[in-house]
């Protein structure tokens, strides 16, 4: 069923039409026979009138009467000779051979069928016939009946229109509910609020709200769990890092023996951080307040904070373009976005390489570009790198770089959160990966 409204309208109109048609049919027949009866009564009284008006016993030629062509009368003597007649009935219509008696009768003459009434005038011993053309009678009767039927037929479309509106009003609570559910943001698990819930929808609304509540609780639990777990892991990882540093100062242990340990700890730390930020910046968490942020300041601060990593690889980093770049966004999320992209650029770019961050104003958007002189990503992998835990070339990444494949999927989440668009390209200038993000102007 496509639409309850359409269905109800069609069903109701069909029923109304059918019922109307049946009653009209019945009414039509009844009206027609009533009209015929009326006309018959008319004929009868006309005959009586003629009998009273003309008492002559002899034929007068001058007495032929001019009447409308649709009616006639004749007065016949008892021997069936004409005493008087209307002009259109100049020959006697009865003869002694007929089985003549008073009453209604159909006769054919002058090329038409006539409805006639024969009156036997017992006092003057004569016959009086009055008649009407039956086809005209029929048309007249039909006109009368049709005039009363047409308004009823015309009323059906009007009824359809009113029903359409009435159903719409009746179904409004349902469409309100639908609209509320449709307009809900992915993160919005608040209950559905209705001005007045009709009886039929009460349990639907209640069930929906209960479901939303359960999903919300599950979300909160899941987030709490992952956040708690990740937080709990932070101190142990700190211990490992600090102790590893201490071991490196121990001359009995060779540097090489510690490399796998270093990598393992690094990786563990990364996974924990990225799991945390993945949940923090998922669209369900979009409720985090948005404000006007200077992207330029964010980039400066993040690079300043993480400069150690870049300095260690003696990479050149620069920020070009607009000196201020205000967008609507979540500061913490944007920091994570820039941090991930800059860290990626630095990680996958060899020593002495170059990283370039550019801020540009383009029509209707602010553009953030991060490009590097690293090996880049093959074009056919552009889509896959945004998937969780995907790493180009799997775990045997050619650059031997630590990572867990969550960085770009976090970036994608944050991009989505800001209704921005992200594109990967090859940097013409530096030869490596070029990440372009367009933030819509508010």
């Amino acid at each position, binding site marked *: 069923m496509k639409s309850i409204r359409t269905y109800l309208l069609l069903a109701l109109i069909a029923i109304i039409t059918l019922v109307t048609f049946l009653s009209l049919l019945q009414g039509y027949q009844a009206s027609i026979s009533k009209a015929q009866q009326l006309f018959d009564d008319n004929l009868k009284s006309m005959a009586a009138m003629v009998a009273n008006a003309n008492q002559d016993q002899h034929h007068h030629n001058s007495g032929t009467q001019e009447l409308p062509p649709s009616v006639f009368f004749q007065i016949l003597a008892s021997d069936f000779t004409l005493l008087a007649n209307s002009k259109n009935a100049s020959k006697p219509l009865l003869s002694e051979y007929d089985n003549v008696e008073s009453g209604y009768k159909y006769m054919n003459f002058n090329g038409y069928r006539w409805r006639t009434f024969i009156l036997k005038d017992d006092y003057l011993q004569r016959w009086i016939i009055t008649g009407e053309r039956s086809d005209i009678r029929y048309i007249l009767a039909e006109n009368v009946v049709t005039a009363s039927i047409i308004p009823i037929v015309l009323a059906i479309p009007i009824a359809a229109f009113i029903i359409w509106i009435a159903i719409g009003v009746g179904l409004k609570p349902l469409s309100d509910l639908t609209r509320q559910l449709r307009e809900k943001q992915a993160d919005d698990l608040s209950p559905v609020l209705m001005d007045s819930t009709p009886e039929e929808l009460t349990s639907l609304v209640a069930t929906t709200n209960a479901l939303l509540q359960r999903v919300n609780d599950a979300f909160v639990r899941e987030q709490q769990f992952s956040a708690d777990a990740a937080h709990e892991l932070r*101190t142990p990882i700190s*211990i490992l890092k*600090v102790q590893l540093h201490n071991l490196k100062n121990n001359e009995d242990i060779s540097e090489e023996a510690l490399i796998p340990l270093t990598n393992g700890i690094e990786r563990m730390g990364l996974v924990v951080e990225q799991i945390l930020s993945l949940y923090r910046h998922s669209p369900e968490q979009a409720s985090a307040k948005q404000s006007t942020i200077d992207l330029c*300041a964010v980039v*400066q601060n993040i*690079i300043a904070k993480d400069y*150690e990593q870049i300095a260690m690889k003696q990479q050149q980093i620069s920020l070009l373009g607009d000196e201020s770049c205000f967008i609507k966004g979540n500061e913490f999320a944007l920091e994570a976005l820039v941090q991930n992209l800059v860290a990626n650029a630095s990680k996958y770019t060899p020593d002495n390489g170059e990283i370039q961050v550019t801020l540009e104003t383009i029509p209707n958007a602010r553009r953030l570009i991060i490009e590097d002189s690293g090996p880049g990503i093959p074009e056919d992998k552009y889509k896959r790198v945004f998937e969780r835990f995907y790493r180009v070339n799997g775990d045997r990444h050619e650059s031997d770089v630590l990572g867990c494949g969550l960085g770009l999927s976090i970036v994608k989440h944050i991009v989505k959160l800001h209704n921005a668009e992200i594109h990967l390209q090859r940097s013409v200038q530096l030869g490596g990966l070029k990440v372009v993000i367009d933030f819509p102007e508010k």
Partner: protein
Amino acid sequence: MQVLLIEDDSTLAEALAQTLKGEGFAVNHLGYGKLAIEAIKTDLPDIVILDLGLPDIDGTDVLRAIRKISVDLPVLVLTARTSLEDKVNGLDLGADDYLAKPFEVAELMARLRVFERRASTLKHSGLSIGDVTIDSIGHRVLVANETIELSRREFMLLKALMENAGRVQTRDGLESKLYSWGEEVASNTIEVHIHHLRKKLPNNFIQTLRGIGYIVKPR
């Protein structure tokens, strides 16, 4: 340098104490906030490393108490929480710096070195990086033992860069250090000061990160 380490996780504390000792710090370790406050009252350390998650009282309360005892005592906050609010709170309550767990030892050391340098410009008056020595009591700067003339703002700028050697200082950050609120700052003022400073200092002493800021690297 006397470091007071306030950290309830004894394994981390022991490992950290070992590291800090290896770097030439004298370390005292306490696992409870109340004890730490008492210890600071009786014997003021040079640097405090404070974990915000303590078993007895909240780390932010410890921070408040420390600030009542001493305004200048450098406090580095460690925390497993990293929400933005935490960060803002910590710095508002008077932490000098902030480090989220799990941290790199190098990062921790860089921050402690900044404290150290700041303490030395405060107490012992001198701080040297390469050929450049800054004498904050005499308000002089020596390059290869020769005094150079600097304006008050140039001096402040150089001091900020040298105290934070190894860490990038953004232009906005330097501006807010140099100028009080409301004062008009021409957009290129910092560039102009840096330009003048460079002429008086050894080549490449102040390095530029285009569009981002400046850095003095420790030698």
